[in-house]
């Protein structure tokens, strides 16, 4: 029989990975459900507009006509910090890093927001549908130069990245399960897929981008792709690609790296690929299998993944429950992830971000520690008040107990014995004016540890 603490600890693990984490009170609520029910809830969000969309628009009017990616920030970061549909948002971030479009080349904040919404809407659905939607996304077409791909002069950029980075992938030797001929055929199949021209934003602000299929600029001749021959259009390519074994493996590997572990486990990944193929590319089924597997739930998986800057920043805003309605501070949250190396709405290249250990360098670590220690000791935040109340209500005489109670109040997190001992020593050897000071020091130290950089 699993104890209530064990259950909460497990659900906390799920929420850190499938979302940005839940605080103590939220975990209390969630623990009335069975673990599998929490997974189901995460997997089945209702797509729809945000409750506070009108407020965001009112307070940050420049984000309504988001001219650049930076102007669009207040819109997305509010959802990352507040949305109750945590997996929907976490998946949007996943696809944003995989089907990556860089806001700086695209230079169109509105189109970036449209794309994130596309990921929310289709990100948990069928992969073929998602690939088709992203191929019809005007921002993507512009980013990968498909508007320069013509019937008589196809540009291979989109065709190549579609196969190499978005679906089938390549191995360590740069070899894919497709040939250069396949790249050429894919490029030809996507001729005529482009964004409509829009007026430049420099005098009236931006105009929404729109997709356009130009039949007259589409190569209608016969193509051979992955061994099949026919008069293929982009949709045919997407359908063939999505159901390819290499795609199943590639997408499942990326999902595994993002949600489970940075250490590749081929056995687990091939189980996921099988689920993918049996369910014809239904992402939700793969995630369900993944989150409900004993492998994901096991102790050895927990606290081993380096938090991305978004995991850290939005984990902290959720833990401290800092924002009730949008304000200037919430609008600037993206600056914090940027200083830690993640420029939201502007991944560094079509390859997305290099995740894992690469997130951490000395500059970004200093930013992480300073940001987290400031926020966790901001006693104006409701979440901090809650933590203080929870801990101070319990035994305040024993340093080890104080530390354990802090870890529990912060959402059932774990740190190593060494770190524990050093924080306990800190409490023993320093003088504090009151209980609050004591607890705040523990909180500041916890978020500054190497342990806290993992989720």
């Amino acid at each position: 029989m699993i104890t209530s603490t064990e259950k909460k600890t497990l659900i906390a693990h799920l929420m850190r990975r499938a979302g940005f984490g839940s605080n103590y009170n939220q975990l209390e609520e969630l623990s009335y459900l069975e673990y599998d029910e929490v997974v189901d809830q995460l997997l089945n969000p209702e797509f729809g507009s945000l409750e506070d969309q009108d407020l965001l628009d009112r307070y940050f009017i420049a984000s309504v006509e988001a001219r650049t990616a930076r102007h669009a920030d207040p819109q997305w970061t509010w959802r990352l910090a507040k949305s109750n549909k945590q997996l929907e948002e976490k998946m949007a971030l996943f696809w944003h890093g995989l089907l990556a479009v860089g806001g700086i080349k695209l230079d169109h904040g509105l189109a970036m927001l449209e794309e994130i919404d596309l990921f929310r809407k289709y990100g948990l659905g069928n992969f073929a549908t998602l690939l088709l939607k992203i191929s019809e996304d005007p921002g993507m077409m512009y980013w990968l130069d498909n508007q320069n791909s013509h019937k008589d002069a196809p540009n291979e950029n989109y065709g190549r990245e579609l196969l190499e980075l978005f679906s089938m992938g390549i191995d360590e030797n740069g070899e894919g399960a497709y040939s250069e001929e396949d790249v050429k055929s894919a490029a030809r199949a996507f001729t005529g897929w482009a964004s409509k021209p829009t007026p430049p934003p420099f005098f009236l602000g931006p105009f929404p981008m729109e997709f356009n299929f130009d039949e007259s600029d589409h190569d209608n001749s016969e193509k051979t792709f992955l061994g099949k021959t026919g008069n293929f259009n982009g949709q045919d390519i997407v359908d063939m690609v999505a159901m390819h074994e290499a795609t199943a493996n590639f997408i499942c590997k990326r999902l595994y790296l993002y949600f489970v572990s940075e250490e590749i486990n081929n056995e687990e990944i091939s189980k996921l690929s099988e689920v993918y193929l049996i369910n014809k590319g239904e992402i939700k089924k793969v995630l369900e299998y993944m989150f409900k597997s004993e492998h994901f739930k096991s102790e050895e998986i927990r606290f081993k993944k380096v938090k991305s800057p978004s995991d850290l920043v939005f984990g902290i805003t959720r833990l401290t429950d800092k924002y009730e309605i949008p304000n200037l501070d919430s609008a600037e949250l993206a600056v914090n992830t940027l200083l830690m190396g993640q420029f939201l709405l502007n991944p560094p290249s079509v390859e997305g971000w290099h995740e894992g250990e690469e997130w951490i360098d000395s500059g970004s670590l200093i930013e992480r520690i300073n940001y987290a220690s400031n926020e966790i000791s901001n006693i104006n935040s409701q979440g901090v008040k809650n933590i203080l109340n929870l801990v101070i209500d319990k035994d305040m005489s024993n340093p080890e107990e104080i530390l354990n109670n802090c870890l529990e109040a912060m959402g059932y997190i774990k740190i190593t014995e060494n770190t524990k001992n050093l924080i306990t020593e800190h409490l023993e050897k320093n003088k504090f004016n009151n209980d609050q000071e004591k607890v705040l020091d523990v909180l500041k130290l916890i978020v500054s540890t190497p342990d806290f950089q993992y989720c």
Partner: protein
Amino acid sequence: MLSSRINYSHTIGIASFEGRGFMNPIELKFHNEILYVLSRSNGSNKNNRISAVSLDSEHKFEFANWGEENGKSILPTSIAIDHKNQIFLSDEHLNRITVFDLNGNFKKSWGEFGSDENQINRPSGIAFNKDNHIYIVDHINSKIKKFDEDGKFISSFGSFGTKEGEFNYPWGISLDNEENIYIADWRNNRVQKFHKNGEFIKTINSFKDKKINRPSSVHVDDRGYLFVSNWGDNSVLIFDDNQNFLSELFGDATLSKWCKEFLEVNPEQSSWRENAGLFEEEKRFWKPTGIDTNQDLIFIADACRHRVQIYKK
């Protein structure tokens, strides 16, 4: 009948982060032949300011730029000009009212954050009555508060809710000649009219067969005609002095003088524009907000198109 007589005049504005032009103009006042336009920007982009321009697009000066110091602003919401030729500016980040002379020189400021009667939490629209008292839409506190020009609290009315006389994130405010008060009760999708003592008079929430959607701003002109920015649906509604619906505007903008100048020196931008050919879309309002009038003209701040559309009455 006004609806048949109302004609588009011209447009002033260009998107610009500083100097000549605007960045998300949300409020304006026409006074002594000068149009004062409040650019909101985003707070983090720091391009907010009040620009003073002439009707023939001469950029004269700007003030109240980004900052916390005296005479600066972070998230400005509204401007009003009192009977002593002073410009008042509300700021919902600093919870502050700042007073300038007509040349934009700082005179004084006041305002205290909180929920007590003399405090404010995110002030939105502001307007003056004949006694030179200022009404502030204290929008998070769901109250309309009256202060003297130095910030001494006089009275207030309203509370949070959806019933008559209650507010849900109210925004703009205007007074008619009899000092009746009109409030854009934004999240309740209606305009409410009150007697100057705060007594509820009526609700305006529909026109033809449509509902008002998130009204941002209201303005009553010298004849008692009511103008409502139907922000949620990107139009401007005009009602007569009995609040009977007359007309709905969707925007008729032509290229402003500044836009023409820009396109002349940047021919490739001009050809991109031609190539896109969205000339109808270019005319339309996008999040219209502040409205002002004089005897002949109607000025509409077109927030997401960085311009002021001007109509003849």
